[in-house]
């Protein structure tokens, strides 16, 4: 009835007052009930295995404590193997042996770092057995006894993150996880090193979904949530611990593996962002005079540019039509008769002469009256130091120029106008504050095909050239494209 430590037969129902030289149960505790014993053991157990389970590098003191002369702990350590041996279930299988080996190894490693006596003590012990078959856990893992020897006795409900103990023995996969299920449970009852707890907690929830006995449930990409992965990434030091666990199932925890999902996320997100930025840059490159380089202004400039291009296209179409029309008329009448610049947007787009004839009075070349819509186009262009506003109404061109630096561009402007065959009618402007501003009105010579954007771009080009040259003498004007 009494737990025979030597024979390692534990009867849960017996009065748990182990006797024997090796056992040093605290005599002060007169709790014959197994429950209390179990409770004791329960209390003690986590201390032990918490020590082992934690990252060794962080927990030297606790390990020391375990190995040193804490009678309770040592006694428990001694008791443990007995419990395991006593169980009629799978504990007779290889697993306990594995566990024992692992624990021995672990303890030996630790012991070497600690004082010698403790080492002796721990090394002399029977291989530490885990408390899995602890009474307190029996009800938690009812299937433990019935499970086969090869499979981990703990059901999926006990799936918990693989304890870090396994790092000591990478081959002890299932066993180690088995070992730690109760421990983890116990550990939850006691304050744990925060990183470990926080790390493990997110996995605890995940673990339940997987039915691989004893294996950590984070298999495959689907198991890990982003938050969990993020937490894992955050607690880098503990990842090292988790990482060491290798199992039959590929446990994807740890920076390299478990971060897969997260780094994939990062990578795809990064790719997406870089691609998007490239597209913005491509858009910006098309725009003639980009001023700012942030996304909103790029899009704004693009909008203006598209509108400008549309206007230009319309204008060009119109001019072409007019030209064809004029040539026709010239053929008929031998006279340049196209004075009115009729613009019918639809007609221009259609490009059909018939539609234009529908608008203009047929066979009346000398008619100078306005028929239908007038040609009107309006364009603004900005560069760093210059703003140009070109408006064409019929045959009058109005150019407004604001030059932000002190460059006298009047001469340039007039040159440009004469090149473009524009008849200057009116000029006004001058030095206003820091700017030079001019307003020029001119008339288009008949027969010349000048359109708004051509004017605007030429003006800006010329003025900017001088601005950047910053020379006293203005540069030679650009050759006329006509």
């Amino acid at each position: 009835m009494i737990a025979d430590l030597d024979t390692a037969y534990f009867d849960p129902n017996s009065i748990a007052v182990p006797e024997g030289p090796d056992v040093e149960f605290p005599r002060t505790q007169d709790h014959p009930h197994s429950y209390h014993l179990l409770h004791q053991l329960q209390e003690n157990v986590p201390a032990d295995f918490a020590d082992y389970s934690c990252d060794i590098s962080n927990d030297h003191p606790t390990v020391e404590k375990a190995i040193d002369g804490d009678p309770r702990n040592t006694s428990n350590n001694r008791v443990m193997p007995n419990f395991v041996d006593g169980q009629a279930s799978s504990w007779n299988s290889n697993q306990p042996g594995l566990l024992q080996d692992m624990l021995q190894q672990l303890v030996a490693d630790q012991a070497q770092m600690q004082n010698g006596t403790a080492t002796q003590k721990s090394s002399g012990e029977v291989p530490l057995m885990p408390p899995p078959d602890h009474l307190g856990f029996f009800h938690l893992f009812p299937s433990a006894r019935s499970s086969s020897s090869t499979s981990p006795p703990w059901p999926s409900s006990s799936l918990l993150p693989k304890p870090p103990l396994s790092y000591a023995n990478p081959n002890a996969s299932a066993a180690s996880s088995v070992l730690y299920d109760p421990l983890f449970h116990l550990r939850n009852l006691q304050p744990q090193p925060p990183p470990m707890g926080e790390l493990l907690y997110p996995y605890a929830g995940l673990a339940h979904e997987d039915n691989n006995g004893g294996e950590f449930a984070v298999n495959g990409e689907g198991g890990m949530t982003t938050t969990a992965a993020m937490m894992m990434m955050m607690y880098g030091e503990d990842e090292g611990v988790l990482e060491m666990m290798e199992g039959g199932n590929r446990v994807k925890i740890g920076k390299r593996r478990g971060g897969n999902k997260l780094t994939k996320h990062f990578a795809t997100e990064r790719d997406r962002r870089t691609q998007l930025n490239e597209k913005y840059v491509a858009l910006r490159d098309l725009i003639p005079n980009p001023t700012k380089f942030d996304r909103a202004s790029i899009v704004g400039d693009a909008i203006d540019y598209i509108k400008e291009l549309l206007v230009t296209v319309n204008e060009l179409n119109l001019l072409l039509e007019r030209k064809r029309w004029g040539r026709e008329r010239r053929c008929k009448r031998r006279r340049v008769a196209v004075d009115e610049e009729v613009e019918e947007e639809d007609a221009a787009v259609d490009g059909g002469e018939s539609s234009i004839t529908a608008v203009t009075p047929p066979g009346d070349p000398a008619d100078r009256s306005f028929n239908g819509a007038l040609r009107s186009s309006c364009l603004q262009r900005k560069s760093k130091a210059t703003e140009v506003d070109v408006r064409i109404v019929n045959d009058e061109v109005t150019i407004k120029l604001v030059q932000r630096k002190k460059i006298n561009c009047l001469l340039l402007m007039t040159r440009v106008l004469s090149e473009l065959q524009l008849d200057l009618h009116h000029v006004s402007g001058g030095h206003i504050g820091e700017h030079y501003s001019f307003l020029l009105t001119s008339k288009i010579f008949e027969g010349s095909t000048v359109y708004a954007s051509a004017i605007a771009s030429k003006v800006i080009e010329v003025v900017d050239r001088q601005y950047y040259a910053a020379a006293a003498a203005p540069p030679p004007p650009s050759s006329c494209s006509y």
Partner: protein
Amino acid sequence: MDGLCLGGIGGGENGRIGRGQLEDNDDDDDTQYKSKNLEAERRRRLKLSQRLLTLRSLVPKITNMNMATIIDDAVTYIVDLQKNVKALSDQLLETEAPCEDGPKASVDEIDTAQEMEANGVKPDVQVTSIDEHKLWIKIIIPKKKSRFTKLLETLSVCGFELTDTSVTAFKGAMLILSCVEGASGEMLKASRTKDLLLEIIKGI
């Protein structure tokens, strides 16, 4: 980064109010700046999304509705339009009809001079000095094609620069009122300038 900048500004403002209040206002300012930052960020994002929507409305070919495709479509559309413009303008240049301005221009010139006379507008050149470095000129001449340009060119060669200018054309004449400065800040004399101008006008 924005937070840092704003904090800096807040510090400046606090300095103005009074050093004593600096610490008291810190928390308020932090929250204030945070919310201002939030609002600013929200507005910025709103601005961007509105503009993207406008861009989208302009582009005819729409595939998907997400940000990347909007920009892609816009790029293709702009390239398309540019090609269009180029083709059309080339076409226009090719089929450039010979200008019949030659004879007409000369007719205009004659007309303008005659018109001037007919209307009683007399050619005139006046120069007065405003101060040491500025002159004020008034010129009335018959309007000819690109005469003003030539005038300006010649004046610049002589070292004059027109600053505040007003030019109008009426009744065949061109009226030029301008403030003239020496290109290199030299002193100008009214009489000499007037002679110069008369010479120039004769030449152009």
